[in-house]
């Protein structure tokens, strides 16, 4: 802890004496807002500070260190070219209050990115306000609600498959709807019969991830779309798994009305460690009036980009300024670097890599639903249960082999689930060694299950007590009691 390294009076900075007279603190702040005592901040030299955080950063796992097959998260490589573009002073130092006339380049970048992403998704317009996928979901659902309300037909329920991400029902509830779960069939796909039965005149829409969280393409999507539309509902596309179809199929052509993308997944912007992310939301033409305000417009006559705030039917603002601009900028670089043919290759290789890896570990960790997958697959570690080994033990052991674990215990419809997404950026050699590690772990489970239960053995922190941490959450450091208590 940085607090434990603190020594009174040590400083990482030194400021010169002020040589101008300014107002005193007493003049600036009323007494009620002034601290009686300075805050208890750690006091360190610059070197101690740098060493401390460098050491911590070296204990971190990151995509720049090794493979990160965390299912549903698309932890692909983030090209350094995008980082370079984002750190150009003309981009980095922009202020969101800058006059439109002075930032035409940045606005053009957003406008061009919108066009490109609309083309990739088959949507008419897109907003960049949502800061990540879940906020995109909320925005889309608020638009769904505004649309039905404007038609004088307020609706209560939103249908969600049982394999959906947990954010879907949460967003539905937050948007003031009721979530209605619909089952998967024996193929792991939406049960069309059950869906049709659930579609009543109080259904606002269906939220669907395609391919779904089992890594399977919803082959009945045309019938699903027709059924939802016939019942007066809207179709929402959760873009979490867009990486597997980008450049190949467009959600708009499948019949979706609302689409969110996770730029921090499909479009290779940094992901994890607190983000920031970006979850742009696209809509078909009839939903355009409800988009968050303001909307970026190109004035052909004046040859000028500007923000249109005159949006009377808009659901309003859902983020300060225009979203996470730096992230959108990185996605723009990624798109322009790859071009349409490159994007298609992304999807094709992501699917190829997942199927290759799946085939290599199929015997030890069979997939819950047989057959080819898309960009990810869900295996089950249930076979190891008889040895007292759980999916979590397999994953902890994988850390010792130098891999980030896959997602586990999700989706809930698969027992002891291991959800693996290698992404297109991993080489065949990396996939081979990941498969070798998983197969060796399956052998170890037979011969020495205790090894798995006590893993990881190579990390600075072994196995935290997750249950105790959740039951007795303490996120604030307090000094140790000098008398020996805690």
């Amino acid at each position, binding site marked *: 802890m940085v607090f434990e390294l603190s020594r009174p009076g040590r400083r990482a900075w030194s400021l010169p004496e002020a040589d101008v007279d300014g107002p005193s603190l007493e003049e600036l702040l009323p007494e009620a807002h002034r601290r009686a005592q300075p805050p208890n901040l750690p006091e360190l030299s610059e070197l101690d500070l740098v060493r401390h955080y460098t050491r911590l950063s070296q204990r971190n796992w990151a995509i720049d260190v090794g493979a990160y097959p965390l299912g549903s998260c698309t932890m692909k490589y983030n090209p350094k070219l995008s980082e370079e573009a984002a750190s150009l002073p003309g981009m980095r130092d922009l202020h969101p209050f800058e006059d439109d006339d002075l930032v035409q380049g940045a606005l053009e970048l957003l406008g061009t990115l919108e066009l490109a992403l609309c083309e990739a998704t088959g949507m008419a317009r897109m907003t960049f306000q949502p800061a990540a996928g879940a906020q995109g979901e909320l925005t889309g659902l608020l638009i769904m609600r505004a649309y039905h309300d404007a038609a004088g037909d307020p609706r209560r329920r939103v249908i969600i498959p049982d394999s959906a991400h*947990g954010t879907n029902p949460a967003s539905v509830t937050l948007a003031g709807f009721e979530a209605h779960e619909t089952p998967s069939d024996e193929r792991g796909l939406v049960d069309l019969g059950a869906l049709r039965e659930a579609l009543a005149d109080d259904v606002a829409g269906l939220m669907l991830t395609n391919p779904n969280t089992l890594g399977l393409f919803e082959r009945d999507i045309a019938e699903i779309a027709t059924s939802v539309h016939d019942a007066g509902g809207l179709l929402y596309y959760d873009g979490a798994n867009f990486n597997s179809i980008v450049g190949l199929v467009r959600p708009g052509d499948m019949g979706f009305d609302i689409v969110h993308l996770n730029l921090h997944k499909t479009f290779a912007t940094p992901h994890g460690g607190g983000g920031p992310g970006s979850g742009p939301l696209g809509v078909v033409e009839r939903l355009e009036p409800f988009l968050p305000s303001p909307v970026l417009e190109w004035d052909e006559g004046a040859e000028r980009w500007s923000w249109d705030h005159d949006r009377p039917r808009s659901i309003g603002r859902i983020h300060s300024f225009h979203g996470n601009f730096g992230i959108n900028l990185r996605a723009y670089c990624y798109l322009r670097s790859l071009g349409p043919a490159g994007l298609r290759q992304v999807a094709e290789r992501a699917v190829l890599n997942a199927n290759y890896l799946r085939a290599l570990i199929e015997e030890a960790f069979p997939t819950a639903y047989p057959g080819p997958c898309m960009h990810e697959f869900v295996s089950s570690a249930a076979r190891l249960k008889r040895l007292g080994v759980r999916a979590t033990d397999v994953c902890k052991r994988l850390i010792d082999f130098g891999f980030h674990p896959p997602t*586990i215990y999700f989706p*809930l419809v698969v027992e002891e689930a291991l959800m693996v997404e290698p992404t297109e950026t991993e080489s065949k050699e990396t996939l081979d060694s990941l498969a070798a590690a998983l197969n060796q772990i399956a052998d170890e489970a037979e011969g020495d299950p205790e090894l798995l239960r006590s893993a990881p053995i190579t990390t600075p922190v072994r196995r935290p007590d997750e*249950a105790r941490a*959740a039951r007795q959450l303490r996120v604030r450091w307090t000094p140790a009691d000098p008398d020996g208590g805690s």
Partner: protein
Amino acid sequence: MTNLPGDRRYTRAHEWAMESDGRILVGITDYAQDQLGDVVYVGLPEVGTMVTAGEPLGEVESTKSVADVYSPVTGTVLEKNSEAEQAPEVINSDPYGRGWLVAVDASGSALEELMGADEYQQWLEQEVDS
């Protein structure tokens, strides 16, 4: 394979219900707690809340996932187990005893419509096989 007392009735969503002093006690089964793993949080309805058979009455969160608890009966919540709220590990250690969740007004509920221990055991075997 799992502990199933014969003194209560069971649901397909792995809850149990038992009559006790004119009230219906509700909890989750040993199988359910085993599947969830270490329970870290339980969200229960306030006393006086109307619950409906087959509708969610609360939720149980473990280090693995969050699961809705579906009410086996229809009625009004008379009491919730504050011990389980404070120390949710009792749901793991004693799911049929100290890990009960709520007590519901018995009137209007037909426990015999729920499964007995044998029938639930069969349902479990079927579900685990599939």
